[in-house]
């Protein structure tokens, strides 16, 4: 069975749900600790949401220096699939694995809602299980979700088809080009602000639209 690592930092909130999502998708979740420079032989890594280190300085700015992140950066550069969700996305940007940064929501409010997204790219390790252009609903819940980058970076992301998810009904935070999630050039690293791990079962979320993300990577790493 494929092993998917889920990192816990001080202040991480969604590691339990991410591990549950991996189990639902048929994988074996492996708990990874921020202080250990060890990925425990996993096939892919999820950096889950929360408020690592209290979001002190900037969201993700301190977590990127954690011992485990050094291993994640090395493994990701070698092609290991990595998914950053919410605070995890912020950490991947701070670590330089994804371009851009996430800033305070334009409306200055914490936004928590079931969010409609369009899947813009299915040729990534984490979205292969979606239909092209699929509209999905998964929760978004953050204070710092506004994607920002230089114009040239955004043009590059758009030109290379690296915008993976886009907000459709409303843009909840003022993100440039309605960007909700992006990928690395090779599609192995994906970061998004909304939470697929909270949408894997209609009993506990708006539906199960998020489950395909975890199933996709299991298909990728098994392939």
């Amino acid at each position, binding site marked *: 069975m494929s092993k998917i690592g889920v990192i816990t930092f001080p202040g991480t909130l969604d590691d339990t749900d991410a591990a549950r999502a991996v189990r639902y998708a048929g994988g074996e979740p492996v708990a990874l600790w921020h202080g250990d420079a060890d990925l425990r032989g996993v096939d892919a890594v999820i950096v889950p949401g929360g408020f690592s280190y209290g979001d002190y300085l900037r969201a993700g700015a301190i977590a990127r220096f954690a011992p485990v992140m050094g291993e994640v950066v090395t493994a990701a550069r070698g092609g290991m699939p990595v998914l950053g969700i919410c605070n995890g996305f912020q950490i991947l*940007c*701070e670590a330089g694995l994804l371009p851009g*940064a996430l*800033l305070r929501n334009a409306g*200055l409010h914490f936004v928590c809602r079931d969010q409609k997204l369009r899947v813009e790219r299915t040729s990534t390790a984490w979205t292969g299980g979606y239909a092209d252009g699929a509209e999905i609903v998964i929760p978004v819940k953050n204070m710092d979700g506004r994607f*920002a*980058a230089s*114009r040239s970076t955004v043009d590059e992301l758009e030109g290379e088809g690296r915008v993976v998810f886009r907000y459709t009904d409303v843009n909840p935070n*003022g993100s440039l080009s309605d960007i909700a999630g992006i990928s690395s050039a090779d599609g192995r690293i994906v970061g998004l602000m909304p939470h697929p791990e909270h949408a894997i079962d209609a009993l506990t979320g708006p539906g199960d639209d998020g489950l395909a993300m975890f199933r996709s990577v299991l298909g990728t790493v098994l392939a």
Partner: protein
Amino acid sequence: MARVVVDVMPKPEILDPQGQAVANALPRLGFTGISDVRQGKHFELEVDDSVDDETLAKIAIGFLSNPVIEDFVVRRLS
């Protein structure tokens, strides 16, 4: 020992809704004539004399600021 100040500001092209909120509040509070506010961060570091400018720049660009969205200025106060 010296005191070093690092000021970190959002780049001019980056939307600063916190600064805007402050700017919008000022007229309501009776303060007029202020057309714009930008909000940033101010760090004060107590550093040994052995810490050179290059090290301070590394601290500012690699940790205290995010060069994607922010500019910084390092000043030594004697």
